[in-house]
């Protein structure tokens, strides 16, 4: 029996277990003797898993408590969002500081250039004299 074939048989058995049917031994009996032991062991193991993995549900008290907590948290979240959305826009300090720095730098450069120009004009006037 190929590995693919065994995969098919095991998946079929899982579907049967989920449908509440007990696993058919037909597949094991039809398997070649060398695959029979492994197939049988894996099918038994799957049946054990199905048996013990019964659905577990939280208690109704826990469910209600968690639901109340979530509603409360969601309420806080909504209030916070509403506050953020209605808050007047505050100037963004990063941009303001950046613009001020840029303005100051431009002013200093203009001052230096003007001073140079003045010096140059003065020296031209002096040499003309």
């Amino acid at each position: 029996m190929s590995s693919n074939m065994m995969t098919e048989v095991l998946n079929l058995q899982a579907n049967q277990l989920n449908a509440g049917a007990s696993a058919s031994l037909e597949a094991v009996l039809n398997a070649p003797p060398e695959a029979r032991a492994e197939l049988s062991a894996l099918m038994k193991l799957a049946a054990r898993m199905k048996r013990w993995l019964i659905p577990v549900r939280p208690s109704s008290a826990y469910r209600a408590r968690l639901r109340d907590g979530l509603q409360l948290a969601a309420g806080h979240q909504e209030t916070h969002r509403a506050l953020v959305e209605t808050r007047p826009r505050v100037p963004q300090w990063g941009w303001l500081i950046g613009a001020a720095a840029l303005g100051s730098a431009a002013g200093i450069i203009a001052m230096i250039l003007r001073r140079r120009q003045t010096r140059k004009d003065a020296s031209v006037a002096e040499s003309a004299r």
Partner: protein
Amino acid sequence: MEAEEQLIERAKRDATAFGELYERYVDRIYNYIYYRVGNHADAEDLAARVFYRALGNIARYKQRGAPFAAWLYRIAHNLVANFHRDAARRREVPLDDIVAVAEKRAGPSQIAEQNEDARVVLEAMRALPAERQQIVILKFSEGLSNAEIGKLIGRSEGAIKSLYHRTLIALRAELVKRGAE
């Protein structure tokens, strides 16, 4: 029942809609976490964290074709992984949780045997990689088909089929290692 996509969009601004999503998924998420951690106290704690985290992030949730449950399972998966990494919190499965699993009609000695078998099998399952645990929990505890499991964990139906086979082989090897097969 309201379509899931609409409910999710509504849940981004409306607490009641999120409450509906919670009601739809709390049992499944709790069940998954319970089998990953093995006791109710931690399952309750982690399931609550899953939903608080989902509430905090739902505004950024984008629908990309995967079911909403896939997102919740992913959050649960990450929280369970963190939980297991936290060595200080690692402990044995409490006995009362195992007793809850045993079949109610059995006699005391049968209950003891069943509890032992459940303990051995479930502990061996918890030794498997997270994705393989997820496959068997979703398959057997939630009764999902390979196609449904594939959508939840982002794999094809065929991949789940063969992963299931490999999971059984790995589980059997784990049980042999523990002398329980």
